[in-house]
């Protein structure tokens, strides 16, 4: 059986409204990338970093401060 890891996903702005959550724990397969997590969450992102156990993944829309 494939090993699984647990990460924390944070949501901001439009994504927070869509999910109605500020953050949540998310279980995924070891060697997952943000892209993999995005596909499961039906959100966006595409990097090739391998996620590690207890990683914190933050999806950041274009910033609009000021």
């Amino acid at each position: 059986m494939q090993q699984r890891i647990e990460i924390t996903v944070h949501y901001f702005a439009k994504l927070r409204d869509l999910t109605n959550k500020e953050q949540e724990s998310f279980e995924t397969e070891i060697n997952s990338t943000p892209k993999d997590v995005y596909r499961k969450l039906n959100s966006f992102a595409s990097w090739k970093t391998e996620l590690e156990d207890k990683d914190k993944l933050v999806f950041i829309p274009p910033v609009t401060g000021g």
Partner: protein
Amino acid sequence: MNSFHITEDVIDAESIQPVLPASKVGAKSIFEGIVRDNNLGKIVKKLEYQCYEELAVKEGNTILKEALENYKIDGAFCVHRTGKLEIGETAVLVMVYAAHREDSFQACRYIIDEVKTRVPIWKKEIYVSGESDWLKGAG
């Protein structure tokens, strides 16, 4: 001084008292971004700012450090509001101290421009019509 802050409290320029050697200061520039009542043809009732504070403080302090390295200034400070803001309230304040006005103007401009494009803060406009929307890019 020389620090970036996030606050849910009202920003009052008078209450910010940076500690600086008075003998060096010849200029103080302040920029305040204020909530206005319209944008892109819609009448705005209030704004809501959301922030990823951990990264915002880190990136904000990096911007202030860059300003201190690249301009002849003696102090730089920035504070940004989060939460719901009424029309007329200050959303962001930048304060720069320098020996001369040109350096303080330039550094102040650099800081606000970089904050608007790099610091993870998001603005939601709530309109008089009852609708609301997250803005889509630095404006």
